[in-house]
C-alpha cells in the first residue's frame, strides 16, 4: 500500500496529465460527423507519431553500434508515422475542400 502511495506521489504530475488528457480527448472528439471519421482517425494517427521524440532521444544517447542501428531504425519508423500520417490526412481533406 505504501508503495502505491509512493508511486502516486512520485508520478503525480504525469498522472494528472494522463487523467486530464483522457477527458480532453473525449471532449474534443465527440460530435464529429461520420464523414470525418476517416480523416480524423488518420490525423490522430499522425499525432501519436510524437513517439519520434523518444526515438530521437534514444538515438541521441546511443553509444554502441548496435543501439545506433536500432535507434536509427526507430527514428525512421517514427518519421514515417509522422510524415505519412499528416500527408495522407491532408490529401484526404484536400478533396473535401473542393466540393463547395
Amino acid at each position, binding site marked *: 500500500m505504501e508503495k502505491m502511495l509512493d508511486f502516486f506521489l512520485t508520478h503525480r504530475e504525469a498522472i494528472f496529465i494522463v487523467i486530464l488528457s*483522457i477527458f480532453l480527448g473525449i471532449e474534443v472528439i465527440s460530435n464529429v460527423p461520420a464523414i470525418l471519421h476517416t480523416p480524423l482517425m488518420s490525423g490522430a494517427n499522425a499525432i501519436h*507519431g510524437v513517439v519520434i521524440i*523518444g526515438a530521437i532521444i534514444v538515438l*541521441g544517447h546511443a553509444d554502441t553500434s548496435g543501439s545506433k542501428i536500432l535507434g536509427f531504425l526507430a527514428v525512421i519508423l517514427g518519421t514515417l508515422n509522422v510524415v505519412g500520417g499528416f*500527408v*495522407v490526412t491532408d490529401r484526404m481533406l484536400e478533396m473535401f475542400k473542393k466540393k463547395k
Partner: protein
Amino acid sequence: MNDLSPFSAGISILEITYVIASVLFIIGLKMLSHPLTARRGNILAAFGMGIAIIATIIFHEKDEEPIRNIPLILFAIVIGTIIGWLIAKRVKMTAMPQLVSFFNGMGGAAAALISMMEFPHISHDLIARTGMANGQVLAILLGLMIGTVSWAGSMIAFGKLDGWIGDMRIKAMKYVNLTILGVLIGLIIFIMTRDVQASVELTPYVYLIFGISVIYGVLFVMPIGGADMPVVISLLNSFTGVAAAMGGFLYNNQAMLTGGILVGSAGTILTILMCKAMNRSLLNVIVGVFGGGGQVVTDVAGSIKEISIPDAAVLLSYSKKVVIVPGYGLAVAQAQHICHELDKLLDEKGVEVKYAIHPVAGRMPGHMNVLLAEADVPYEQLIESDEINPDLPNTDVLVVIGANDVVNPAAEDDPSSPIYGMPIIKARDARNIIVMKRGMGKGYAAIENMLFFNSKTRMLFGDAKSTLQSLVNEVKNL
C-alpha cells in the same frame, strides 16, 4: 525522472516548445472534427510536431548531456520523410485504410524499439532503491507490449485490407487469445518482482515479451472480418497512442504524454462511435462474432433476374429520380469517375440523381465521401442513409454499385442474421432496383442478400467500371 536539475535556458525553451506543441495537438484535433476547419487543424498539428522535433534535437539534455549523433538523426529523418511522403502521395485513394494502418504500425514499432533499447539502461540507483517494481519498468514493459501488439496487428490489418491475408476463424480463438494475454501480464509481473542488481540480467524475458506480443497482435486481428477492419484500425491507433504515452512517462516528456494519451482516448471514443454507426458492440467486434457463426440461409425464395445494358440505359434515362448506392466494389474498380459521368449524363436528361451514402460504405466510415469527392461529385448530391430512406418509395430506380451488406434487408427481417439491427439503406422500397455486381459472391459479412432475389431487382453482372462505361455509351446513344 527528477526535476532537480539546475536551471538551463535550453531546457526552459524545450519545455515551452512542448507546451506549445501539446496545445497545437489539442487545437488541431478539435479543428479536425469540423469539416470547414479540418485541413487547417491537420496542418496546425503537423506544425506542432515539427517544432517539438526540432527543439528536441537542439535543446534536449539527459543527465546534462546534449543529444549526440545528430547527423545520424537527421539522416534518419530525411529517409523517413522521403519514403513516407512518396507512399502517402502515390497510394490510390481506395487504399487509404491500409495506408493509415501501415503508418500506425510504424509508430507502434518505434515505441516498441524504444522500450527494448531503454530496458537495459534503467538506472542502477533506481533499482537499488525500489527494486524492479517501479514506474519506469512498468512504462517500458507496457510500451513494449502495446507497441508491439499495435505493430503486428496493424500489419495483419494492412495485409487483410490489401487482400493478401484471409480471415482465420476458429471458435477456440478467443480462449487462446485470453491465455496469451494472461501470459503477457504474468511475464510483466514476473519481471517486476525479480530481485536483481541490474535490469540487463532480465533482458531475455523482454525479448520473450516482444515475441509473445507479436503472436498476440497477429492472433488478435486474424479472426476479425474485413467489414470490421476500420474499427480494429481505430482501436490499434489508440493502442499506439498509449504506447507513445508510455515513452512520455519514461522520459518525463510532456509532449509525448499529452499527444499519446490524447490519441489514446480520442481513438477509443472514435472506435466506439464507429461501432455505433454499425450498431455493433466493441466486444462483438473483438471477439469476432461477425459472420463467424455461419447461419446460412438455405431456402432462398425467388430467382435471380438479369437486365441487359440497353434495357438498363432506357430504364435510367426515362426515370425521374435515381439513387445510386456506391459500395467498396465501386472503389476497387476505380469507377467513381465514370460513375460521376453517368450521373452528369442523366442530369442533362432531366433525371434527378442522388447518392445514398451508408456510414460504413467502403472500408472506413467516410471513405466513400472521400472517393466521390475525388471524382468531383458535388457535396449536395451525397445524402446520408437516414435522410434518403424516407425518399426511396418515390425513387424510380435505385442503382447498387458494388455494395452488398449495407442494402441487405436481413438487417431488418432476420433476427438470426449477424447484421440484424444494423441501419441499412432500404433499397427494396424503391420502384426498381439495379444491382451491379461482379458475381453472385457474398458481401464482407459472408451472408446471403435477399435483395438480389426481390421481384423488383435486376442484376447487371460484371466489373463496375466496364459496366458503367458501356452504360454511359448506351445512354449517350439514346
